[in-house]
């Protein structure tokens, strides 16, 4: 039964990685939608590149949390209690972001839309920042006592390494979102996406390299970087080069690998700890002293082996269905004369009747 514990650590790593790879570009698009889309049609086009996808992507976070709850209840309990206020802020950002997608177009008023645009942008920056700070804290260490309880306060979370990690994740998501928009938009929006990507890429690379080295120094006893750390550095350098070389598909692939390897590197360097105690290394939470019993892990293993491939299959299919680019022309209001001719109704405002093309 012992080897199900590392297996579940791998599953949780996969879930967090999946979350960042997918929701990462959603965050990036959320941060950038007002920059890439300079008018209402453009902003709507930007948001609609992720319209059908973001909700399913966000579920990766829920499942990552629930999987920790089921497989490592001790880890879940200590981590979520320790991050109480940070998680309240994270939840607020995610909630505001989620409803912003849904609600900004539901009223035809400029102020209403601007408000949701601002909230969407702020929420999209805060969410990866806070999660970055939270994940970094696991590795860097927090005041945890002998009974696995966090004894510090909110301010203990804001260590330099944690803040650096948070900013790194924001930048990686930003670049990931920009390369995604290069793939999914057309015309001047695509041009602006490239511009943003070129501006962001070198800064992101600097932060990723710093993050990897800092992580390595914090957690590893060897001198040389491990494979996954090296991969993160190579991937982000490749991303910079590909962005400047205007290779859209490869650039997006490179940012995908960057974001994935950053998260995996953090989890690899953390193992077998799950939360380091800065009070006393003997109080570290590890996969072994926080895991569920063998029966629970066995049941959950069956569940994850059945369902994760199914989920991957239909999510992949969704990406295939919505593979085409979104252009701002689709969202331009119809010319007034045309509208008057075809719409005899005085209030043709039901959203479900808004034409898609």
């Amino acid at each position, binding site marked *: 039964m012992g080897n199900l514990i590392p297996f579940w650590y791998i599953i949780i790593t996969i879930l967090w990685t999946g979350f960042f790879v997918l929701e990462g570009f959603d965050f990036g698009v959320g941060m950038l939608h007002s920059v890439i889309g300079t008018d209402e049609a453009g902003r*709507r086009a930007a*948001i609609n590149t992720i*319209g*059908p*996808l973001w*909700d399913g992507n*966000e579920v990766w976070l*829920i*499942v990552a949390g*629930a999987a920790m*709850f*089921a*497989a490592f*209840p*001790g880890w879940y*309990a*200590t*981590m*979520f*209690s320790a*991050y*109480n206020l940070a*998680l*309240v802020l994270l*939840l*607020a950002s*995610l*909630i505001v972001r*989620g*409803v912003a997608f*849904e*609600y900004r*177009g*539901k*009223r035809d008023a400029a102020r209403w839309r601007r408000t949701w645009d601002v909230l969407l942008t702020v929420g999209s920056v805060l969410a990866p920042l806070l999660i970055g700070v939270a994940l970094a804290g696991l590795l860097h260490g927090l005041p945890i006592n002998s009974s*696995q*309880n966090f004894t510090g306060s909110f301010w203990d979370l804001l260590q330099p390494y944690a803040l650096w990690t948070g900013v790194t994740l924001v930048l990686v998501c930003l670049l990931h979102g920009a390369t995604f928009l290069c793939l999914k938009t057309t015309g001047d929006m695509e041009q602006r996406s490239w511009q943003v990507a070129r501006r962001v890429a070198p800064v992101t690379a600097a932060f990723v390299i710093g993050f990897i080295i800092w992580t390595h120094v914090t957690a590893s006893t060897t001198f040389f970087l491990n494979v996954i750390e090296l991969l993160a550095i190579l991937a982000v350098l490749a991303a910079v080069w590909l962005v400047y070389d205007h290779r859209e598909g490869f650039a997006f692939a490179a940012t995908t690998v960057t974001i994935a390897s950053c998260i995996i590197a953090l989890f690899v360097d953390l193992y077998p700890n799950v939360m380091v105690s800065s009070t006393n290394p003997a109080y570290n939470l590890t996969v072994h002293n926080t895991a*569920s*019993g063998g029966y*629970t892990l066995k*049941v*959950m293993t069956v*569940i*994850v082996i059945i*369902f994760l491939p199914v*989920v991957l299959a239909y*999510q992949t299919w*969704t990406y295939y*269905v*919505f593979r085409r680019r979104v252009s701002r022309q689709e*969202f331009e209001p119809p010319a007034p004369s045309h509208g008057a001719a075809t719409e005899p*109704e005085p*209030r043709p405002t*039901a*959203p*479900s*009747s*808004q034409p*898609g*093309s």
Partner: protein
Amino acid sequence: MTNVDLARVEFAFVSINHFFFVPITIGLAFLTALLQTAWHRSGRDDYLRLTRFFGTLLVINVAIGVVTGIVQEFQFGMNWGAYSRLVGNIFGAPLAMEGLAAFFLESTFLGLWLFGWDRLPRRIHLLTIWAVAFGSALSAAFILAANSWMQHPVGYTMVNGKPQLNDIWALFTNPVFVWGYSKVLFVSLVTGTMVMLAVSAWQLRHGGDREVFTRSARLALIVLVPAILFTLLVGDELGVIEGRYQPMKIAAAEAQWTTCQPCSFSLFQIGGGNNDQTPTEIIAIPHLLSLLATNHWNGQVVGLNPLQSQYSKQYGAGYYVPNVFIQYWAMRVMAYLGALVLLLSLWGLWLIRRKKLATSRRFLWVAVWAAVLPFLMNTAGWFLTESGRQPWIVQGIMLTKNGISPTVSVTTLWISLVIFILLYGTLGTVDLILMLKYSREQLPPPRTETDADAPVPAVLY
């Protein structure tokens, strides 16, 4: 307030709010799927227009249901750390299954349905809305299995004083789960149909398309009648089952301090609560409590006082009586509102027979306002269930006061509570405004002959 009180208030607040959106989602997803199926089968444009109209209302609520659902999952770890640590190996399992099997399904296919109108073949597109309906109903199954385990723990052994899961099936054959989940499904249908009925009624009163909205009002009523009947029947059986495993809950719901046989049911009482064991009962119906609590005409209901002394012996000194005031009134609000909904639905059915549904302005007026009933009824039901479990967080295994995160401070709890109240207050208001706005919109225009076979344009943000 102590940190236990604050953590409880916060959990109650976010859960009650979350459960406003859950039953609408489950109910409306099912009804929208029915409408789209009707369109698919008959090809009648009315059904397509109704699908799009009610689909919009569905989507407005799903958005909040999903994001408030994340809060629910985080609450256990944030404020109930000791509880999560002790029972996560059991309670966490259905939650993880919920995410993997249901949440992914629901949210991925909602995206496909919403944006896939002109991208997917019609048959596949119809399947996507059924996947949403199925996913939302399935997610309720897992969370109810987890909640039922707190009411009546099964499928575990104690290892070094800690419960360890040893039979996952027991969680899903738990009688509290079987009946509780059925009740949630029926209640969701009641909520969804009451919303649909109210919207249709408003439209009929205000010059909306008479033929189309009569159709949706009839569909709502035809689903509502059996749904509310089953809600009441299943709810009654759930009461009997909970009475067996949680006798305190049922005794407190009648403020029954002494053991009785047969037991009468009081319609109202004056006074009462945990410090007044002799309230004035108004209109006591003989035998009714026996019947409700045990299914027997002369069934015995053990009183709160004998239960208290029995629990003190079994679990050690302590006060094991839940809040009697809440139990007594939650039970009555739930039951009386359920009866009102039943009467309304029968009235509507009678009007359908008389072919007067679209013209009875009195019924239509009542039906609009009756939309608040299922929400009040559901909230009262959860008060009855959750407050009735107190002082336990897991019946017989862990007390609520021992379940909190020991190092989360009162200040932190106050801050988070205030943030949630502000956030949910704003969201609730926005949701209500949008629901009202879109309920009062005109139907999407019918499609002309020429584009009847053309793809239906997608809904976009």
